[in-house]
């Protein structure tokens, strides 16, 4: 969220009423902005991204003025025609086809006002136009420009001008390479066949949006009294809002706003390619009083609702009944609900009573979660300490330190944009995390018997992936299990696993086997442990645990009994290999097992 620094004196003058310190803080919080800090000279606020119109002293002051009751309704705005034209040509790159522009005169700029204008331009660039991806904004001293101005596409190698802050002429590609703005935003236009430029009637290149203005004609300072302001980009809607916000702020700064007529080659834009900018006419939206009252749990009269809307800077249409007039700089009003929200803000969130309705609904815990709690209780009963570790780990710990090979490596789900090597993959098993805990707790009392039940993830294996691509299969999946459905979508399987580690001077295989057999006994799952090879464990002291469930089915005649055996491999169990222990720096024997809880839970449900 953008933080803006407001000049307190300017702001308070605009707000039209001086509040006590406490009241000011309270009101700023309750209009829907985060107050960061406040002193005699400055106010630092975080403006929510839905209100780019509040990113300046003028915009913030305008919203605040009605909110605190120093004014009401739609803010005044006047403009007249400049008689100038801006030609927007079809030669423009298809990625950057739109432009809007207007003129501001009678500005009495000083260092403070220049700061305010530049801050607004920058903050709008960061938020509304998404770091220039959705638009670029430019300001020019009007006296250096000869109208009409053209916005057109030119091949990069034919473009040469002196970019802002430099003293010599540069080519377009040179600017991309060497100019700080070219380096920062060059990725937006690098691949375009043509670059977009503003050219005036003297054929002077004024700027190359969205990168940089010309140093000769595109630099404003305190001596500037008249401005040419433009916005360009791929989204006419976004740049229109940006331009409206700037126009409103300059108007509130005391400027006289003059419109420019847009002349598009593309006749689908505006009226046959023509329209005036800025168009500050309010948008209209029908007010649904019932909806507002129903959603807020209030019973406000029309007058009250209208009053609250006026407090939030809306006008109430005099010609039409029940219609709100939305200022042309409010980009955030998409729906009736947005009016409702502003009514709630004006009413004051702190003035709502709260209630819990007496609606009968049936509570239900997730069955697997409930099962997991029972399993946890068994381990607490056995004297184990429960761990809770991060899901994000790294391949070194999950694979290399565990003495595993590339084969296991391929199933690890890696992150595309991890910040550190330590945390760049989703864990595919729990035991590495438990060993890490043991390595960090050598100073604590033994025995250190740990368990953790948590989610592990792995890529769906390739064969399954082929099946997954088969769209027919999607239609065939009969499961209603959300986790499986999501795995079908993402290609990542997730399971709940139980990791158990027993660590003390006399830890051995027997103890782990006793524990797993106790657990399976309580779950009434007969088991068998088969010898297996697993590089993380000592050879000859590692097994695969297999459980069987016998389902007795009876046919209609109650005579024939069919036995249906289900068999599942559910765990690895064994003594951790000394090589693995050495990798983790553990000097006490560890015996462990890792069990697929999801599998067991599904088996029990059968």
């Amino acid at each position, binding site marked *: 969220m953008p933080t803006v620094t407001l000049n307190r004196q300017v702001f308070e003058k605009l707000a039209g009423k001086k509040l006590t310190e406490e009241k000011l803080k309270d009101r700023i919080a309750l209009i829907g902005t985060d107050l960061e800090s406040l002193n005699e000279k400055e106010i630092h606020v975080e403006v929510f991204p839905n209100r780019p119109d509040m990113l300046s002293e003028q915009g913030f002051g305008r919203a605040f003025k009605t909110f605190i009751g120093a004014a009401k309704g739609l803010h005044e705005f006047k403009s007249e025609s400049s008689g100038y034209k801006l030609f927007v040509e079809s030669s423009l790159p298809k990625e950057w086809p739109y432009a809007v522009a207007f003129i501001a005169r009678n500005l009495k700029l000083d260092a403070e006002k220049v700061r305010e204008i530049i801050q607004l331009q920058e903050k709008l660039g960061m938020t509304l136009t998404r770091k220039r991806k959705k638009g670029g904004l430019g300001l020019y001293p009007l006296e250096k420009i000869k109208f009409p101005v053209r916005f057109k596409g030119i091949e990069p190698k034919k473009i040469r001008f002196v970019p802002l802050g430099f003293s010599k002429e540069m080519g377009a590609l040179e600017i991309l390479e060497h100019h700080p703005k070219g380096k920062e935003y060059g990725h937006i236009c690098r691949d375009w066949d043509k670059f977009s430029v503003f050219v005036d009637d003297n054929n002077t290149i004024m700027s190359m949006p969205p990168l940089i203005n010309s140093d000769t004609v595109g630099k404003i300072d305190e001596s500037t009294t008249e401005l040419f302001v433009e916005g360009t980009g791929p989204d006419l809607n976004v740049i229109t809002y940006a331009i409206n916000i700037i126009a409103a702020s300059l108007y509130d700064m005391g400027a006289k706003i003059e419109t420019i007529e847009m002349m598009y080659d593309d006749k689908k834009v505006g009226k046959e390619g023509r329209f005036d900018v800025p168009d500050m006419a309010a948008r209209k939206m029908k007010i649904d009083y019932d909806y507002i009252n129903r959603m807020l749990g209030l019973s406000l009269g029309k007058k009250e609702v209208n009053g609250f809307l006026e407090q939030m800077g809306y006008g109430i249409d005099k010609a039409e009944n029940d219609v709100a007039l939305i200022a042309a700089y409010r980009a955030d009003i998409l729906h009736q609900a947005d009016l409702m929200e502003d009514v709630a803000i004006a009413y004051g969130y702190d003035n709502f009573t709260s209630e819990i309705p007496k609606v009968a*609904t049936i*509570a239900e815990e997730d069955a697997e979660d409930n099962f997991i709690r029972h399993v946890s209780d068994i381990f607490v009963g056995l004297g184990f300490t429960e761990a809770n570790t991060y899901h994000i780990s790294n391949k070194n710990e999950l694979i290399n330190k565990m003495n595993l090979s590339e084969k296991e490596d391929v199933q690890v789900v890696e992150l595309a944009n991890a910040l550190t090597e330590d945390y760049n993959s989703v864990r595919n098993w729990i035991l590495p995390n438990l060993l890490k805990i043991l390595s960090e707790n050598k100073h604590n009392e033994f025995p250190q018997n740990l368990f953790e039940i948590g989610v592990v993830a792995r890529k769906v294996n390739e064969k399954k992936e082929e099946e997954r691509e088969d769209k027919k299969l999607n239609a065939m999946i009969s499961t209603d299990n959300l*986790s499986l459905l999501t795995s079908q979508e993402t290609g990542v399987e997730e399971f709940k696993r139980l990791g158990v580690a027993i660590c003390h001077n006399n830890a051995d295989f027997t103890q782990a086997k006793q524990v797993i057999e106790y657990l399976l006994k309580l779950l009434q799952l007969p088991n068998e442990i088969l010898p297996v090879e697993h590089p993380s464990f000592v050879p000859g002291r590692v097994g695969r645990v297999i459980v069987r469930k016998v389902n007795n089915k009876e046919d209609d005649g109650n005579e024939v009994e069919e036995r249906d055996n289900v068999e599942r491999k559910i765990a690895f169990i064994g003594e951790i290999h000394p090589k693995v222990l050495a990798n983790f720096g553990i000097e006490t024997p560890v015996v462990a097992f890792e069990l697929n809880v999801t599998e067991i839970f599904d088996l029990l449900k059968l």
Partner: protein
Amino acid sequence: MTTDIKAIADQLHPLERKVFPLVERFSKLDDLVTESSLQQVEVLRALQWLQNKKLVILKEEVKELAVLGENGKKYKLNKLPERRFLEALADGKEHDIQSGINPVNITKEEVNVSIGILKVKNAINVRKDAEKNILFVQLTDIGKKLLKEKLTEEKILEKDFPFEVKHLPKEDKNSLQYLVKRKGLLEIDLYKIRNAVLTDLGRNVLKAGISNEEVIDRISPDLLKTGSWKTKHFRAYNIKTSVSRVFGGRRHFMNEAIDYVKRIWLDLGFKEMKGNIVQPSFWNFDALFTPQDHPAREMQDTFFIKNPNLAYIPSKAASKELIKNIQETHEYGRKTGSTGWRYDWNIEEARKNVLRTHTTVLSAQTLARLKESDLPAKFFSVGTVFRNETLDWKHLFEFHQTDCIVVDPNANFKHLLGYLKDFFKNMGYDKVRFRPAYFPYTNCSTEVEVLHPIQKKWMELGGAGIFRSEVVVPLLGKDIPVLAWGLGLERILMDYYEFNDLRDIYKNDLKLIRESKLFLR
């Protein structure tokens, strides 16, 4: 005072009862061992306990004792070798040491030792015949005199062993050292001599009398079987004595807290939602009306999956129809009464797999599966969520959220505030305040803050609002109020356990998990 004395007497352990009265007459440990007929360790244990009760004072003296070695014992009987050597030379003549000395009395090794010793004392002359390579020895005048006198070493050997070194005259100490250096003659051992002395309190307790009757110490199976306890008294224990610590099995405090949170929602009639941590952007963002160019969808905020990087949609959960509805809602609002975001929605962006950034993704998936006949309905989830943050004391890249939705045609904003206040009351926060906020998928969006009861500061613990029609209509097929909130749990835990660092929650310090207070509110 008298009751104290009686209490002390009653609490005496059987071992103490045996040893304590003896201290009146004997102070040396050895004597106490002999007199009590107990093992030394038992006497020592009893004395230690008595000392803890301030009934006796244990004193420890370190003594140097001279003890005879194997050779020393032999020489005490058969004289020192140098004496015997002297005697063999008694005739005053020169003897050839290879053949001229009576071998019955003295070994060859002893001859060599004796020559060395006697030479130092100037008792013999030694001459070497270089040609034949033979040594000849002969008594000197001093040697002759020594025949009639005792050597200091001999005087020492004659003493009763062991004896305390400190009693030896100073001038004899060199000779003692000399003997110690010789092989197997004698050693000086350090002995700790322990003495027990009664304190005034001890004397008083004894004076008051300790019953001689046999008291019951441990209750043994035998005692119970025979019923012999009926005729005896139980020794009273000092129950204030500190005992060594034990630890039992313990759940992680985060999970204890999660269970508590779950119970709050279950008590309010909510049903649990579960789902995966890896999710398509479609569910995590698009279904929640988060525009595709929203900053939350950028690399620096969200973890994207490297491989498989793209999800397969449409799918059974995200049908073609649902995707189309969501696309159109983003683009122009479709049937929601909204203008939409007015941009071109791209399914490739929706396919990007992410680690879920909020459990609200589960709320979206639940709405998509909900039938109108199920209403009204309330759902909750507690789960891990992920943000691409650098780990530090106040940022984690994964943490827990609890998310709820209330889907009810009659739900309103006041209910939202009601559920949240009730939840935080259960979590120990009585004062809750709601500030306007912004989330792309809610209206009447609010940040929920609680007043810290001690610090008197507002803590931001979550976000809430009413799902926008743009979220509800495509998923549920109808515009029905859906109250929604998502609250973080870690800050509440940090506050409850007085951690200064969020990372402590997942440090898995076993001492911390074993000994942290229970999560009770």
